[in-house]
């Protein structure tokens, strides 16, 4: 009973501030627009690719290229949903109303997660279809093997990024600190660690590196990644669980 009350309240909270519309809207627009743009470039550049690169050409994955930037907006969404409570001081009022802190946190996350999943899934489908329409002759079809999994996986990936951010923000409380760590990590550090050969062994297990495997349909030719699409998503889920559990434990123990 308490959970449904928190869910209703959190829905009111989330829809009554402008930042929700802005961050989720931005995530969708950036992901789709950048995906279309890169798809268009890829189509024009296709003939210049080497044979190996042509074999590795993955039209589905290319239409999701905008996600590298769009995920940043989802990180902001996830961070703000949680840390707004702390930066305003509402957390005290909220926890005084719901002394069961676990109920409070998980209901809050559930609402934000559902919203992020809805937006993520729509974004993923739109990015796929628009991207394919731009790719012309090189396009993939939704009926092709593994494509539907990749498109739904794109929505899951975006959702998990948001939930991970919520967990981290619950641990850190401060929006500036959370964003200051998450943004450069997902935008730069993870990409560098995952692509430099020296750190690749470790880097490929980072949440976004592992999770984005779900959006891949064509495996690159010289691919030596030790997990498949679902395995990669599983690794990401583990990261998310760690963040959420860490946030819960700290919230439970800490003075509000």
């Amino acid at each position, binding site marked *: *009973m308490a959970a449904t*009350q*928190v869910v*209703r*309240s*959190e829905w*009111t*909270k989330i829809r*009554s*501030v*402008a*930042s929700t519309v802005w961050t989720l809207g931005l995530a969708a627009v950036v992901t789709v627009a950048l995906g279309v743009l890169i798809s268009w470039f890829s189509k024009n550049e296709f003939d210049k690719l080497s044979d190996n690169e042509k074999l590795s050409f993955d039209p589905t994955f290319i239409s999701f290229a905008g996600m590298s930037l769009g995920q940043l907006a989802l990180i902001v969404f996830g961070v703000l949903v949680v840390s*707004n409570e702390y930066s*305003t*001081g*509402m957390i*005290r*009022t*909220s*926890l*005084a*109303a*719901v*002394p*069961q802190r676990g109920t409070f946190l998980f209901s809050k996350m559930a609402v934000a997660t559902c919203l992020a999943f809805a937006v993520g899934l729509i974004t993923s489908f739109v990015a796929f279809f628009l991207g394919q329409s731009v790719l012309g002759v090189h396009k993939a079809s939704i009926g092709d093997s593994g494509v539907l999994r990749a498109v739904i996986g794109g929505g899951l990936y975006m959702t998990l990024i948001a939930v991970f951010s919520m967990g981290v923000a619950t641990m850190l409380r401060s929006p500036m600190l959370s964003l200051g760590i998450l943004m450069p990590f997902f935008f730069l550090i993870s990409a560098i660690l995952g692509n430099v050969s020296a750190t690749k062994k470790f880097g490929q297990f980072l949440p976004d590196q592992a999770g984005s495997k779900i959006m891949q349909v064509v495996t690159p030719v010289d691919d030596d990644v030790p997990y498949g699409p679902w395995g990669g998503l599983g690794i990401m889920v583990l990261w998310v669980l760690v963040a959420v559990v860490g946030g819960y434990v700290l919230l439970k123990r800490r*003075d*509000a």
Partner: protein
Amino acid sequence: MIEAVGLTKRYGDKTAVYNLSFQVRPGAVTGFLGPNGSGKSTTMRMILGLDDPTAGQVTIGGHPYRKLPNAPRQVGALLDAKAVHGGRHARNHLLCLAQLSGIPARRVDEVLGVVGLQDVAKRRSKGFSLGMGQRLGIAAALLGDPQVLLFDEPVNGLDPEGILWVRNLMKSLAAEGRTVFVSSHLMSEMALTADHLIVIGRGQLLADMSVRDFISHNSADFARVRTPDTEPQQREKLTASLTEAGGQVLPEQDGALRVMGLPLPRISDLAHDADVRLWELSPHQASLEEAYMRMTQGAVDYRSTVDQRAGFLQELPPGAVPPPQMPVPGQGQPGWYAPPPPQQGGHPFAMPQGQPPAGPYGAPAVPGAGEPNPYAQPSPAPAQPAPAAAPDLTKPEDAR
């Protein structure tokens, strides 16, 4: 009923609240007084189960807050009026709090009316004044129609009309049999609002008594008598004579005498009989604020120092006299607000515990009385009346 037993809270090696025990009873407004940083808000947070006490416990109706069934319908609290998302309008703010506690939405419109914010219900709280924010916070506390209400500094930022409104609201809530616990650092406000007082300083209990007791013990009338500064022996002569007549005489920092227990005409007659000239004979009443200051002065965490302006001072031309430093009330003077207590005997504060033990008059019951008083130095130029006028400048609250 709120009951704290041995409540202690430490943050690292800083003790915010130490061994606090008190009861807050229903049907009365209980004022919770203390200087800034004395642990009022920490205590309030512990009552609400937000902070875990290091030792001891606090219960509401016998339950710790986090085990209280349906807590938000039993307890309402205003902790921080600024704890609102500025981008959310007032009605939505209250609506999400109502939904959190399973309170129907129409109650939101009711409390908005109660606090007088119905016209700005759809305005973002970012644009609210501090007073409007306080009203919004009070509305949130009233949402669940709770039997126990906690307000942390509810009159901060309110205009006089708003202060009167809060005062009447507290009283009417208490009159309905609710438990009302209000923190404040304004004694004067609490004297008008509260029925009972709990005073803390540095996280420890200083007083737990009814306002009526507080007033009767601390607002003693007294007369200020000043004999010529030039003739200290006259002062001693008068002290002896007044004491003999049954008065209580205490020296003040500036050399005047504070006389209790004798009416003004009688003091004048006694002085005349003793052949002592008087420079001043004036009636005074120790304010509650004064009594409160005296009680908490040892427990003030943040005390200002005199602004030396060392870097701004210009080299004085040779032979020039530096301008006299005008004392500023409260700056760099421990015990500035510390007139001697109405009763003798080293008790810094009068608790209702029968007659205070009698002590030798003039004993250093005054905090800081042992030190030479910088403002009551033996006048270097005896004939000048200026030194006598100086104390009046420095004691604005007594000069009235």
